[in-house]
């Protein structure tokens, strides 16, 4: 398999084997992780650092707006709060909304001691999030921001009979996640709907099309409806992104938010959170 530098960077952005291999005792270094991708430690570290630098620059640009900075100051996270971002590749992404939020806190509220734990895992459905949720409870979270459901709507094969999970099953899983959170943590919860996508770009993407993977906005909107019905605060990205999605807010894969898309997600999330009581 020969990958271009862009393809390699796309994989490294979203595929984090250190999460898949956590818990089996061994500790791998950048050389080993780079080797998994077929590159040296330097190239691997350089690519990840470049993505992290993007998240930091995005935070600086956001904070240059005094209104945004004032909303950050009103966020209901107490000193020392543990905030867990549960999600899929849109959270796992090295320059995701969650990483931007981390950079925003580091820049604006460095002494508040808010701990942000990125529990996004590329490819995860709501079932996967449920099966991983015990790990979230072990973090003793004060806030769980749950941005999940895009992969429930994923379809596989040339003639897919169904999405990976039917919308009814997604609804049961979100209820189960709420129940798990309510019985085994004292965290407050916030939901983010899946955004919309550009199906034609997904169909043309080197990796997604090769995997015979497709998404339809109808499927994503059905999941969005389920999320919007949760009895917790919800950020509705589907209203924000439009259907089909704004092209400049997605990467060329037609699926993942671009840096501009993640900036839009952080803005919407901070607005919604800053309206909530402490």
């Amino acid at each position, binding site marked *: *398999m020969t990958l271009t530098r862009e393809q390699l960077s796309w994989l490294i952005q979203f595929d984090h084997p250190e999460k898949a291999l956590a818990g089996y005792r061994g500790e791998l270094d950048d050389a080993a992780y780079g080797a998994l991708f077929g590159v040296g430690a330097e190239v691997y570290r350089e690519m990840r650092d470049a993505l992290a630098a993007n998240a930091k620059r995005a935070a600086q640009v956001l904070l240059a707006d005094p209104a945004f900075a004032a909303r950050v100051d009103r966020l209901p996270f107490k000193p020392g709060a543990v905030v867990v971002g549960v999600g899929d590749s849109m959270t796992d992404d090295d320059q995701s909304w969650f990483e931007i939020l981390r950079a925003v806190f580091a820049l604006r509220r460095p002494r508040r001691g808010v701990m942000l734990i990125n529990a996004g895992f590329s490819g995860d459905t709501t079932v996967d999030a449920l099966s991983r949720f015990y790990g979230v409870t072990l973090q003793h979270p004060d806030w769980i921001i749950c941005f999940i459901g895009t992969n429930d709507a994923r379809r596989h094969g040339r003639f*897919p009979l169904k999405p990976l999970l039917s919308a009814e099953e997604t609804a049961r899983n979100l209820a189960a996640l709420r129940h798990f959170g309510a019985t085994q943590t004292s965290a407050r919860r916030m939901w983010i709907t899946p955004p919309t996508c550009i199906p034609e770009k997904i169909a043309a993407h080197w990796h997604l099309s090769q995997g015979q993977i497709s998404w339809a906005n109808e499927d994503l909107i059905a999941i969005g409806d389920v999320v919007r019905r949760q009895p917790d605060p919800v950020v509705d990205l589907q209203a924000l992104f439009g259907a089909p999605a704004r092209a400049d807010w997605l990467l060329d894969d037609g699926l993942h938010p671009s840096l501009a898309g993640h900036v839009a997600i952080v803005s919407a999330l901070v607005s919604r959170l800053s309206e909530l009581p402490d």
Partner: protein
Amino acid sequence: MLSYSPEQLAYLVQFIHPAKTLGALPGVTEDIIAAAFGLDVEEYRRIKRSYADNARRAAQALLQDAGFAAQVARLPFAPGARVVALGDSITDDDQSWAEILRHLLALARPGDDITLINAGVSGHTTSDVLARFLGVVNEQPDWIICMIGTNDARRHGLHPAKTMLSPAETERNLAALRQYALTQTSARWVWMTPATVIEEKIAADWWLGQGNQIMFTNADLRAVADLVRRRPEPVVDLQAVFGVPANPDLLLSDGLHPSLAGQIAIVTALVRHLSP
């Protein structure tokens, strides 16, 4: 760094195969996998070899029975056939029914050049198998033997509200898997139901119940098995073989995974079904 006993590490190595889950990455090597387990590569290979030896010896012992050997000889796999064993940890297991079947075919029918592909991935539900079915298609299988559904019945947490997948979703997934194979392969299909378990042993297990708040019930597994039994394709009913609760001799001490004796019971039931 987490610390595990040698037995616990051997259990993880038996069932967790990062080469399959990280397979999309170009540079997965034995050295990195061994390092992920905190083992040097020689120790890792020694553990893997001991399970492979178990599977080979089990096949040799089974073939001592002339009646069984005749059934293996009659298995309806044509020379050159490609047989995919599709499933979860019960198939992924380094000494699983699929590995024993591989040795049975190699020992009893060496000239037939039958390829056995172990497409079990630990932890997988029917949705996970649907998500990676293109990999099965790409193997150009002549046969698909599918033992799936145990993880659909998995429950997580101290007060689980539901199984990983509701029976209605499992039923839709079984139909979707079959449809995928019908439209993109010319393979013949055989199902095997989930087996049964010993609930108390799972709850007490260091990894499953104690380490990960995972539970299974025989009632949930039976609901999945009922859906498999209702499929129109051939079905091997492992619940009848294992009993309810399961015969402890057929399971490891975790109460969930078949022991070597349990894996032998599975492959025996499969061979008898395919070569009546």
